[in-house]
């Protein structure tokens, strides 16, 4: 979608999303929402220091930060980096495959009829059930972890792509017929852009599931990563380590989801304009 940039220039004065954000009526609430987790952490800090909460179960936030500081930037970065790389690799593989398979199933009723029952069954398998199989087949190196994450990311993306393509307005498909688009051109010029909102939502769900599956993968057999940090903290009786890992997970999940959202706004700027001003324009009279 390279046209978006030039289009925005032409529309600069009337772009409704911009006009809306200038006078955001929820601005205060958004700022409060951003401050809320910090307030909660501050309250926990107070409660632990005042001995209302047992420090061996709930470490004070300052103690968690201290633990992280004592580990040193290099060690923290090593764990974070290992987990992030696994998530990206697994998510990339799973989501990429899901887009291809989902597009095929969305475009062809026959392929859909052939594969849908199998995918339904596979989807029903809990993530942890895959762990022994993957360990058996792929050993304890990176391969089983990345595969598990890919499995986690695959299904939400796959579902979203199939549903997105299926849900495209038949009238737009008919327009493609009027312009004699072949199946690939129809996919690229009409089905894909029309299904994109749903696909992007699927990608976001897939990414958050990739983080979940990453923890599951690292809890089993790892020497690095946030999942390893979690199990290490549990085994050595160090809640500060466990909470440090949890804090980092929350932070990373929020960061990557924020990045996805930014991509979403970029890709789907036309939809914002659509929501904001002119829904009735596209409604049929009858």
């Amino acid at each position, binding site marked *: 979608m390279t046209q978006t940039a030039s289009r925005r220039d032409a529309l600069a004065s009337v772009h409704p999303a911009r006009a809306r954000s200038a006078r955001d009526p929820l601005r205060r609430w958004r700022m409060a929402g951003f401050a809320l987790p910090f307030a909660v952490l501050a309250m926990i800090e107070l409660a632990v220091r005042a001995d209302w909460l047992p420090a061996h179960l709930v470490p004070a936030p300052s103690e968690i930060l201290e633990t992280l500081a004592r580990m040193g930037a290099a060690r923290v970065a090593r764990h974070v980096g290992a987990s992030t790389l696994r998530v990206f690799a697994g998510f990339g593989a799973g989501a990429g495959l899901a887009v291809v398979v989902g597009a095929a199933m969305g475009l062809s009723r026959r392929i859909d009829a052939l594969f849908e029952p199998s995918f339904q069954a596979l989807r029903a398998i809990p993530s942890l059930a895959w762990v022994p199989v993957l360990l058996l087949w792929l050993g304890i190196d990176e391969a089983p972890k990345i595969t598990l994450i890919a499995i986690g990311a695959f299904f939400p993306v796959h579902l979203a792509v199939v549903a997105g393509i299926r849900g495209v307005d038949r*009238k737009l498909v008919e327009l493609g017929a009027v*312009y004699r688009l072949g199946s690939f051109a129809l996919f690229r010029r009409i089905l894909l*852009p*029309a299904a994109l909102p749903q696909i992007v939502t699927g990608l976001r769900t897939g990414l958050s599931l990739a983080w979940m599956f990453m923890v599951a993968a690292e809890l089993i057999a790892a020497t690095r990563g946030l999942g390893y940090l979690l199990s290490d903290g549990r085994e050595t009786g160090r809640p500060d380590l466990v909470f440090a890992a949890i804090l980092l997970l929350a932070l990373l999940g929020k960061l990557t989801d924020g990045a996805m959202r930014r991509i979403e706004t970029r890709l789907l700027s036309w939809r914002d*304009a659509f929501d904001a001003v*002119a829904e009735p324009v*596209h*409604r049929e009279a009858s």
Partner: protein
Amino acid sequence: MNAASACLLDARVLRKRYGERVVLADVALQVRRGEIVCLVGPSGCGKSTLLRIVAGLDRDYRGAVTLDGAALDGPSARIGVIFQEPRLLPWLSVADNVGFAAGRRGGRDPRTAQLIAEVGLAAFAGALPAALSGGMAQRAAIARGLFGEPELLLLDEPFSAVDAMTRMHLQALLLDVVARHGTSAIVVTHDLDEALYLGDRVLMLAADPGRIDGEIVVDVPRPRDRRDPELARLRARLIDAFHRFWEESGVAAQR
């Protein structure tokens, strides 16, 4: 219409059915070059179906459609289609929508800019469809329909979703651009005034099964005055014809 203008479109639908129901039976529709033919009729008379057949969107019928003597099987670049709703792609700018037929770079095609100017949307070439009013969006759809100079334009109740003032404006605009490009047109409508204002001929369709049941030649030069008494006289004839349909179908229903 002068005598030399040859037959551009010849559509013969012997039979078109949806399941058991016969929607069209023995329909013969001819359109000459540069001619505007309006189809009017009660809902369910198959006028939109006939248009879809001519557009090549419906191939499940007995009969044949020829354009300039060549058989049509499927949508053709020589036929432009304008739907009841603008049907613009919401993620493309007005220019990219108008030039859609020319592919990805259609928005930058000089023909696109020309057509957008003709329908008076030059200031909105870069806008997204959501920023347009209903009438403006339909103007963009007209420009898109004319892209690539089709010989025949098909319009399916094109102005039924806009208010009366906008409708009159769009009708005049349509006549203007169609005359400029020398395009023939078939307009399906349920608005008798629209049919008489736009059409060189008005064909009346009757239902059950859908068939052509009368023709009115509108021999009023353009630009037409909507208050022209001749138009009012033709309108009365159309209404009489529809009353006859209703009586016939009423009798049929009682039996």
